[in-house]
């Protein structure tokens, strides 16, 4: 059985696709998600092999979601959309397949076939990703989209990944690794990413360690491992 995840903001669309997928007898629908944030969590938790992804969704589109998935966790992606205004044929090479709603069972069987052979061949799905221009964060009961340019630093610990701005800190479902890969934020410590534009000064300590003081007056540790790279970027 192929482990699948459905992401679509419409209840009926999710249910219909789930029914159709289960009717093929080859797909195990692990979960259905109504938006990109739920999907990020589910992907990290359930590690699906294939993602059936709607494009038009509130706040974050299907394309946005792809940019937020860790490379190692990246499942195969099948776009499902009502109307092909994105000229999905152009994505054919990058995505495994695409389906048009309402989905025809016969067409769906072909897609499942494709997924199965891709998995059999052991191809690691790679999608061309772009720089993130918004980081989805939780703020009270809302999802807040934060522009990486206003982020001062990001800190990861047992409680999760927190994005710090001058307004405060917000939890995000994205991993530090994804954020490092898809934004201009720089790793300065195993648990920290920093925005170089927000650095006020760097204090040099013994043992090749350092400490960053940000413009907001926060102090961030710099580990020996990442100091070299930081110096290169800053040009000293």
């Amino acid at each position: 059985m192929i482990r699948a995840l459905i992401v679509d903001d419409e209840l009926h669309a999710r249910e219909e696709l789930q029914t159709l997928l289960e009717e093929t007898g080859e797909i195990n629908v692990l979960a259905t998600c109504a938006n990109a944030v739920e999907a990020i969590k589910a992907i990290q938790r359930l590690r699906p092999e294939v993602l059936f992804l709607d494009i038009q969704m509130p706040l974050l589109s299907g394309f946005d979601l792809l940019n937020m998935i860790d490379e190692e966790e990246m499942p195969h992606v099948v776009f499902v959309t009502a109307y092909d205004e994105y000229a999905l044929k152009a994505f054919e090479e990058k995505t495994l397949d695409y389906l048009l709603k309402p989905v025809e069972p016969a067409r769906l069987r072909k897609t499942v076939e494709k997924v199965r052979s891709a998995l059999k061949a052991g191809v690691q799905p790679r999608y061309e990703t772009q720089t993130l221009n918004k980081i989805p964060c939780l703020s009270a009961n809302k999802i807040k989209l934060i522009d990486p340019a206003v982020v001062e630093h990001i800190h990861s610990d047992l409680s999760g990944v927190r994005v710090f701005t001058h307004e405060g800190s917000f939890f995000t479902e994205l991993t530090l690794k994804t954020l490092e890969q898809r934004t201009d934020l720089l790793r300065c410590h195993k648990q920290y990413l920093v925005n170089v534009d927000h650095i006020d000064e760097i204090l040099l300590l013994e043992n090749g360690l350092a400490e960053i003081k940000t413009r907001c007056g926060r102090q961030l540790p710099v580990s020996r491992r990442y100091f070299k790279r930081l110096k290169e970027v800053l040009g000293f």
Partner: protein
Amino acid sequence: MTLFLELLQEMSVFLVIAYLFSKSPAFRSLTGESLRLRHKVILYLVFSACSILGTYFGLPVQDAIANTRAIGAVLAGLIGGPLLGGAVGLTAGLHRFTLGGFTAFSCGISTTAEGLLGGLVHLYLVRNSRNNDLFSPSIALVTTFFAEALQMAIILATAHPFSEAISLVQVIAAPMMLSNSVGAALFISIIRDQKNMYDKFGAIFSAQALKVAERTLGILVRGFSPSTAEQIADIIREETGVGAVAITDREKILAFSGMAADHHPPGGPITSEITREAIRNNKVVYADGVNTPYHCTLSPDCPLGSSLVVPLRIDNEVVGTIKLYEPKHKLFLNLNRTLGEGIASLLSDQLLRARYEEQKNLLIKSELKLLQAQVNPHFLFNALNTISAIIRKDADRARELLLHLSNFFRKNLKRSGDLATLAEELDHVNSYLKIEMARFEDRLTIERDIDPQLLNLKIPTFTLQPIIENAVKHGISTMLEPGVVRLRAQRRNGQVVVEIEDNAGTYCERIKRGGLGMKIVNQRIKNLCGQEFGTQVACEPNQSTRITIVLPEGGCETT
């Protein structure tokens, strides 16, 4: 006494000159309200000639000349002011001076003085806003009388020897003062009558032209068709009193009104060569029936004998002609000829306006088509997807949704008129919303607050649907939280106000820039209901977007 009669005889020559002058093109100089330099030069030449003739026609009396020279100088002053009067007086005076005699010098001065006196009276009258009196015979009479008296005084004062002067004045004073004054009065009355005739003629002409303009105004806006052409032809015939009026397009007679209508049936082809010539060359063709014969090509018994053909133009392109006819026994009045050309240019302007209106209407129609075509494929396929999912779970609900979908599309396609009742618009919107509510389920709630009294109100079609679609598509569908669309319609401050509000507040910028079909909705309301009505946008980012549609209290009516 003999001298008086002889001077009167001489004066009659002046009256003949005055009469001829009043008929000559030079007289046009006097018909305007104010005199320009060119006109003054003409008047100077005419009156100087009069004055000099007055000297030549004069009778030798005691080594002097009894004459009617004063008339030209005084009238020039009266009509044209001191400068003109002085110039004429000086010219005639110098001329008299060259003829010699013991009064040569006195007469030279006095004629100039007479012209200036006329000019002073002119100034006095103008300053007291009595311009009409410039052409008053009695004022001319009195002025000339005193001018001649002045001349007598100058002769007495300056001519030598004094004894001869006094005996001369005794002989000529009375006849000259009388004949010159009467002559000037008669001269000016001829001029006045002729001038009045010109004025009256002009007034009649203007009145007629204005009447035609007033009556035809707006008819052609409905387009250039046989029925509008017929109305126009009737009006022109009634107002100008010509024998018959025809209006043609480029190929056929659209309307014919008046004599000989029996054999000039509307709808028939243009047979007259002069009409074809007018269309071909884009110029006025006139067959006066004398030099250029006019022959009716349709019937040998046609009573019409002369014709004027004026092309009707839109942007200098001939679209038809207007023809004025007079019967054989009647002359074609010059007045009607000018009027005919004026009317044609007036109608051409109206046709241009009609074309503009027509294009504006086309624009409204194409805007409507645009709105209809905006039904977006996303909506259709998502609707079909939703329904196909619901069929599994609830066939009845699925059937209901299909009926809504079909109602929505039927309304979209069928609605070709400009206006519909609010109830019809709401029905259209309701079908749309029913489908979107099924699609978004608990993410979309609709709150309605419609004043039932407004349901029969006429509003432009496709006013609500595009705006509600914006609220759902660009508002609610982009929210993670539950969305609410509020739809209100009520009377407020003598207007009908329809509000569509969503709690997303996500498309402020785009809608304020006039995108998303709002521009068309707004423009259609303005075109169909009046410029003061239309849409307003109020939004608070991430809180709400509210579109307010303001409509006339009594709804919109097609005009």
